[in-house]
C-alpha cells in the first residue's frame, strides 16, 4: 500500500499516525482504482482543513483546563507567598483575626478530615466488599447502587443541613469535631466506595480461585488474599476522600467549624476553626476585609497545597499501581 502512495505527506502528519495512514489509504485508492469516486480532491482538501480546524478547537478546550488551573494557582501564590512564614503556620490568629497565624485552622482541618475518614473508610470498604465479592446482580444491588449514586449527588450544603438537624441538634453533639466529621464522612462515603470497588475489581480472579481451591472459605479469601492485594488502591481512595473532606466548607459551616476559637481542640466534642471556612470568613465577614487580604491568600495557599498535594500523591501512586497491574 505504501508503494502506491504518491502524494505529498509532510503537512499531514500533524494529526497523528492513524489519520495519516487512513488518508494514505483513501488517496491511494482514489488514484489507482478508477471505479472509486468517493472522495474528490477538493472535498478531500476541505475536510482536511475542517479536521485541522476542529482538532485545534479540541486541543484548545483541553488547554483551557490547564490554563485555568495554572492561572488560579499562579494568582494565589503571587499574592500570598509573602504571608507564608513560620509564625503564620504556628500561631493562632491575633487582634480579631487581622494578624497572627492559622494554626488552629490547620489543626481543625486535620481533625475534621481524619475524623471523616475514620468514619467513612470501614463502612466504605465493607460496602464495596459486599458489592464486588458477595452481591449477585439484581434489584437489591441496583437499589444500593442507586442509593450510592444519589448520595454522591446530594449538594454539600444539604449535607450541612442534615448534619445540623441530626448530629448537632437531635444527637446533641453541638457544633463539634464529632458532628463535623460524621457529616463529612457521610459525604465522602461514595468516593471511598467507588475507589475500593475499583481496587477490588482489579484483583485477578485467579487469586480468588487459587485461595478457594486450597480450601479457604470466601471470607478467608477476602481477608487474606483479596484485601491485601487491593490495599494500595483502597488507600489511594482514602487519600482522595481525605483531600475532598479537607476542602469542603458548606458541610462544616453549621456542624463543626466556627468563626473564631483560639484554643486547640482537646476533645472530639470541641468546636474548631477550619482552613476553608477561615478563608470564607476572612474574605466576606472579617472586620477588615481589605487589610487581611494577604492572610486570605496565605490561607488559600496552605489549603491548596494540602489538598492538591494529597491528590498528586494519590494520582502518582495510582498510575504506578496501574502500570504494575499491566
Amino acid at each position, binding site marked *: 500500500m505504501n508503494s502506491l502512495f504518491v502524494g505529498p505527506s509532510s503537512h499531514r502528519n500533524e494529526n497523528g499516525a492513524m489519520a495519516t495512514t487512513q488518508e494514505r489509504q483513501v488517496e491511494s485508492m482514489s488514484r489507482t482504482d478508477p471505479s472509486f469516486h468517493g472522495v474528490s480532491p477538493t472535498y478531500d482538501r476541505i*475536510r482536511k482543513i475542517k479536521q485541522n480546524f476542529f482538532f485545534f478547537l*479540541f486541543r484548545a478546550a483541553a488547554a483551557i*483546563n490547564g490554563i485555568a488551573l495554572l492561572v488560579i494557582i499562579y494568582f494565589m501564590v503571587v499574592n500570598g507567598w509573602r504571608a507564608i512564614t513560620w509564625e503564620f503556620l504556628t500561631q493562632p490568629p491575633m487582634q480579631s483575626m487581622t494578624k497572627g497565624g492559622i494554626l488552629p485552622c490547620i489543626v481543625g482541618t486535620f481533625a475534621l478530615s481524619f475524623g471523616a475518614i475514620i468514619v467513612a473508610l470501614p463502612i466504605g470498604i*465493607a460496602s464495596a466488599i459486599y458489592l464486588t465479592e458477595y452481591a449477585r446482580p439484581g434489584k437489591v444491588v441496583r437499589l*444500593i447502587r442507586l442509593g450510592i449514586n444519589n448520595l454522591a449527588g446530594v449538594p454539600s450544603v*444539604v449535607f450541612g443541613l442534615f448534619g445540623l438537624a441530626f448530629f448537632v441538634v437531635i444527637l446533641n453533639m453541638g457544633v463539634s469535631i464529632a458532628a463535623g466529621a460524621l457529616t463529612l464522612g457521610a459525604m465522602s462515603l461514595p468516593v471511598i466506595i467507588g475507589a475500593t470497588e475499583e481496587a477490588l475489581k482489579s484483583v485477578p480472579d485467579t487469586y480468588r480461585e487459587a485461595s478457594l481451591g486450597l480450601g479457604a472459605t470466601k*471470607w478467608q479469601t477476602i481477608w487474606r488474599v483479596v484485601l491485601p492485594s487491593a490495599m494500595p488502591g483502597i488507600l489511594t481512595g482514602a487519600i482522595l476522600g481525605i483531600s475532598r473532606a479537607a476542602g469542603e466548607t*458548606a458541610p462544616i459551616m453549621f456542624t463543626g467549624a466556627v468563626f473564631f476559637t483560639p484554643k486547640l481542640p482537646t476533645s472530639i466534642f470541641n468546636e474548631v476553626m477550619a482552613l476553608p471556612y477561615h478563608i470564607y470568613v476572612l474574605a466576606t465577614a472579617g472586620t477588615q476585609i481589605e487589610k487581611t487580604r494577604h492572610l486570605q491568600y496565605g490561607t488559600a495557599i496552605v489549603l491548596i497545597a494540602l489538598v492538591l498535594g494529597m491528590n498528586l500523591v494519590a494520582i502518582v501512586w495510582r498510575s504506578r499501581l496501574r502500570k504494575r497491574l499491566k
Partner: protein
Amino acid sequence: MANRRQTTEKSMQTMFFIIATASITILFLIMLFLFKEGLPIFKTVSVKDFIFGKYWYPTSDPADFGIFPLIVASLVVTGLSGMIAIPLGVMTAIYLSEIASYRVGEIVKPIVELLAALPSVVIGFFGMVLVAPFLQKVFDIPTGLNMFNASLMLAFMSIPTICSISEDAIHSVPGALREASVALGATQLQTIVRVVVPASLSGISTAVILGLSRAVGETMVVLMVAGGAAMLPTSIFDPVRPMPASIAAEMAEAPVGGEHYYALFATGIVLFVFTLLFNIVADYIAHRFTQVGEASL
C-alpha cells in the same frame, strides 16, 4: 468445624450486606430530616406561595418566604455555566480519548483531576478577589459579583465531572466501529462526529446531567461570587442569590426551630429534589441506553 465455618461465612455475608445498605440509610435519614425540619414552614406559607412567591424577606416583619427568585437564580446560573462547561468538558474528553497521544493524555488527565480537586472555597475566593474586579472594569458594571461571574466559576467546577464521565463513555466505544468508519474512507473528524460521539451519546448525556447537578448544588462559589441579591435577574450582570447561597448565608442567623430555620430547610428540600431528579434521570439514561458494543448504534 465445617459447621462453624459455615456460620461464620453466613454471618459475614449478612454483616457486609447490612453495612452496604448504609448509603441508602444515610440518604433516607437526609430526606427524613429535611422534611422534618422543612415541612413546618408550610403551616405559615402555602406550598404555592413558597415556591412561586417573588419576595424573599425572611427577617422582616411580617416575613416573606417566596423562593422563586432563588430557584430562578439557581436554574439560570446552572444553565449559563452549562453553556460554558458542556462544550469544554465534552471537547476535552474527545481530545483525551481520540486525539491526544498517550503521553500528552498522561499529563492532561491529572490536570483535569487536580482542577476537580481544587476546593470550592478557593475557586469562590478567586472569583471574588480577582475575576470580579476584572469584570467590573472590562464591562463597566456596578459590581463584578454577579450571575455571569458565578456561572464562569461554576463552569470550571463542573468541567471535570463532565469530562471524566464523557471520557469513560467515549473510551468504551469499541475500536471496531472506528476502524469500520475509517476503512470506508471517513477522516478522523468524521469518524468522531458521526460514529464515536453518537455511539457514546448516552454516556455523554449522563456526564452532562451529573455535571449540571453538581453546579446546581455547589454552594461556596455562588455564596461568594453570585452577589447575593434575592431578586429576579434581568441581565446576566445582575447579582443573584441561588438556593445554596441563601441556605449557607442565612443558617447561622436563623434560630433553631424558628420560621426562618424551617424555610431554609424547605429550600434545602427543593434543592435536594432538583439534584435527586437530575441523578435519577442520569441513572435512567445510563441503564436504559447502556452501550452494548455495536448494538447501540
